[in-house]
């Protein structure tokens, strides 16, 4: 059809089961729609998105010779693409369609049936008047760059990178820390099978390093992202390591020869429980197997004065104090974000647990390091005064399920607390208490692991710990930490003296999650977890095409789930790449030349640098490949020369008129 043809509109109102129909009087809305201008048919259906629902629309289009379709149902995010396709299958251009959201915007948020029905009518009236002014549009096909960027080198990023590299794609793996491995590299054993974390992780780390299709970039961060699905341009900033990575073989001679004879700086990898020198390697299996120099503590880098004994010790001349920050530019078609989580820091946030105040209060991550044979104590667990603990209390839900810190359940703490209880008991013979609110063990083999711990004599106390103090009431409590808790199963308040208290800290979004979100133009929940496109049906996609999520950056997750999700993200990215092209949404802007005065107001406002200037004609021009359809230029242009497809003035005005004419 052509734009001048008289509109013949079909209106379809969906019940969505009872989602819409329980609040909105659907019959009344249909009746109302029949009276709107150009409406030829209006009908209702229980589930319009179902096959019979779609067929209803297609059949009507044929029978009544419809040329425009309005569907009043759920959010366009959910089914706009479905009904555009139906419109196309019915023989019309897919953009001669408009959706009215009467579920998220009406029935789910309105109590009163009368109000809900009225609002639905207003929205339908707006959609009908708008669609009459829709014009046929075509989508542009753009080829997809087959390279992939993975951000974050924890277990999720490693898994995603290996999967895609094995499929023959070129993968850039960017990691901010000096080594890949993430949190998993810090754990001793993993639940529920108790396999050694390093034994299962480090082979994958070295596969990343040696894989011909993976370019691993450590000490690196993504600085800028431009472009769009299939054609991203990414700037990566690499911080200086002061070591030539290709020359260093990890012999560690430089560390040996450093002017600091003793390691005296807190070792980040061991959460400050151990010490390192200014030149160091984070841990023995670090990947890459390359040392680094910390500019904050290296005498030469800090003060410019040092004997530089390390330079002499390195016969491969790998040390380079002149290294500077480097920027590299990557072209990729898809991005997988696997930036992980941060463990909750109880310092000052839960003073009742005395972390940072009483030396024998530890976080669970610290205990992981103390139990690890590669850790600062070679796996020996003792109190700070060197005693083997007799009793240990593990406090669950620290920084979880708490409105004052984080409201969510962190999902992994019950299981890792049980694991720590097992390991502590095994290594020290101590009696271990687990203080829990609810024991959550929903996973394969998890409940069985809980049962095993109960059989091993772990002492469970159901109750959230109220306080940890050094206030002693009895001689047995002298010199101990006292945990005060209501044993809610027994219904009494107990005071339990322990030698060590372990806070099972929850998982939080990374502190810079919100900046990262903006950089990649994706959404995140108010707490900072990256938002998936749909919680059930698109759990690894984001609202930005071509950007996918893997692991705990999307929400707390254990290792099996992170690995599974990484695989899913890799599959989604592969599907995109192997299709070879993307179809662009045709909602770009253009300039009506004869109206443009050449004032350049628009070009400065464009966030995507899509607006150029034709000096000869003295007119602005928009590069449609770069335009993202944000509409800023349209709103800025003083003479109304900037216009946007699907958002023409007349379409928007008609929609407003439609809504208002009813209200």
């Amino acid at each position, binding site marked *: 059809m052509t734009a001048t043809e008289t509109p013949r509109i079909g209106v379809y109102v969906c019940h969505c089961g009872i989602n819409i129909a329980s609040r909105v009087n659907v019959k009344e809305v249909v009746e109302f729609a029949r009276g709107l201008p150009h409406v030829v048919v209006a009908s209702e259906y229980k589930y319009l998105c179902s096959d019979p629902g779609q067929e209803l629309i297609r059949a009507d289009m044929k029978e009544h010779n419809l040329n425009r379709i309005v569907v009043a149902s759920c959010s366009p995010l959910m089914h706009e693409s479905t009904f555009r396709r139906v419109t196309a299958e019915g023989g019309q251009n897919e953009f001669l369609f408009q959706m009215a959201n009467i579920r998220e915007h009406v029935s789910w948020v309105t109590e009163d049936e009368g109000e809900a029905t009225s609002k639905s009518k207003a929205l339908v009236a707006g959609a009908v008047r708008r669609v009459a002014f829709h014009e046929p549009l075509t989508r542009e096909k753009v080829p997809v760059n087959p390279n992939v960027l993975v951000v974050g080198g924890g277990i999720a990023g490693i898994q995603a990178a290996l999967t895609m590299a094995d499929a023959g794609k070129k993968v850039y793996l960017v990691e901010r820390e000096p080594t890949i491995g993430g949190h998993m590299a810090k754990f001793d054993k993993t639940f529920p099978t108790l396999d050694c974390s390093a034994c299962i992780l480090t082979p994958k780390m070295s596969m990343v390093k040696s894989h011909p299709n993976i370019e691993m970039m450590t000490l690196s961060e993504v600085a800028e992202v431009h472009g769009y699905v299939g054609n991203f341009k990414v700037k990566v900033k690499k911080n200086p390591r002061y070591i030539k990575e290709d020359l260093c073989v990890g012999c560690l001679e430089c560390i040996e020869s450093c002017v600091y004879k003793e390691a005296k700086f807190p070792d980040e990898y061991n959460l400050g429980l151990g010490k390192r020198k200014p030149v160091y390697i984070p841990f023995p299996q670090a990947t890459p197997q390359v040392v680094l120099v910390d500019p904050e503590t290296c005498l030469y880098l800090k003060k410019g004065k040092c004997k530089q004994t390390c330079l002499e010790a390195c016969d491969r001349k790998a040390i380079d104090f002149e290294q500077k920050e480097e920027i590299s530019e990557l072209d990729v078609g898809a991005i997988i974000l696997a930036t992980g989580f941060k463990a909750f820091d109880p310092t000052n946030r839960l003073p009742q647990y005395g972390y940072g105040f009483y030396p024998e209060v530890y976080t669970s991550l610290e205990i992981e390091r103390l139990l690890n044979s590669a850790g600062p104590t070679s796996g020996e667990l003792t109190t700070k005064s060197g005693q083997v603990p007799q009793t240990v209390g593990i406090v669950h839900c620290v920084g979880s399920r*708490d409105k004052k810190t984080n409201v969510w359940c962190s999902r992994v703490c019950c299981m890792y607390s049980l694991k720590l209880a097992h390991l502590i008991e095994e290594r020290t013979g101590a009696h271990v208490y687990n203080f829990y609110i609810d024991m959550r063990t929903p996973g394969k083999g998890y409940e069985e692991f809980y049962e095993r711990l109960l059989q091993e004599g772990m002492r469970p106390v159901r109750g959230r710990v109220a306080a940890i103090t050094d206030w002693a009431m009895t001689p047995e409590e002298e010199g101990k930490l006292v945990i005060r808790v209501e044993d*809610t199963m027994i219904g009494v*308040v107990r005071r339990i003296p322990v030698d060590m208290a372990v806070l099972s800290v929850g998982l939080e979004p990374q502190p810079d999650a919100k900046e990262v979100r903006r950089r990649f133009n994706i959404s995140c929940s108010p707490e900072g977890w990256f938002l998936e496109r749909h919680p059930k049906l698109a759990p690894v996609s984001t609202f930005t095409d071509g950007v996918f999520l893997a692991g705990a950056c999307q929400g707390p997750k254990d290792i099996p789930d992170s690995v599974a999700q990484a695989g899913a993200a890799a599959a989604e990215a592969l599907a995109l790449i192997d299709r070879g092209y993307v179809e662009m949404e045709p909602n770009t802007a253009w300039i009506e030349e004869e109206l443009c005065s050449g004032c350049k107001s628009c070009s400065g406002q464009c966030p995507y640098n899509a607006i150029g200037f034709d000096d000869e004609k003295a007119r602005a021009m928009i590069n449609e490949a770069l335009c993202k359809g944000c509409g800023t230029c349209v709103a800025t242009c003083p003479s109304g020369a900037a216009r946007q497809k699907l958002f023409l003035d007349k379409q928007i005005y008609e929609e407003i008129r439609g809504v208002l004419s009813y209200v």
Partner: protein
Amino acid sequence: MSERFDRQIKYESDLDLNFAHQIASFPGGERIFDCIQCGTCSGTCPLSVYMEYTPRRIIAMTRAGFKDEVVRSNTIWLCSSCYSCTVECPKEIKLTDIMYAIKRQAIRENIWPKEFKMSPMMTGEFFKLVEKNGRNSEGWLMMNLYMKSMAVGDALKIAGIGMKMFAKKRMSLKTEKIADPAELRKILDAAGSEMELIKEGAKEVVHG
């Protein structure tokens, strides 16, 4: 024989399922249904160890409709309003306000454990003194209370401290008063009955 078959079971028909909603409708009671029974309140409460039911159990019983047991329990009279539970609760339930709401219910119904009669009695005497004079007179409050409780033994027990307080000029029988108590009573009368207000305002959106 009957006592051997004392029933332990609680039938739904014995419960008042509306009780929790009534408590929830008072300012401060609104989050009672958020409770996850973690026991932080009881663990932090300095008096829970003396209570018949810990604060956590009071919440559970209130929600389940055990109104008689809750209103008759000594727990509410052992609450010292120290607000530990309120500030520690991970679900931000204002337990102290809930304790107050249950206390008011008990006072309205005139029921309390015999050995705790001093608490509602003091509350009542205090209320009367303030309503009459606008201020509390600590000397008279104590006098009235112990005269009324007729527990001569109790009175004597604290008489020692009382006499010492008088001697140290930290107790007196002067009546403390505001300029015009009648004016204050007008304000208190206009504040109205809280029960009616609750009915009226229960739908209000709570910001706290």
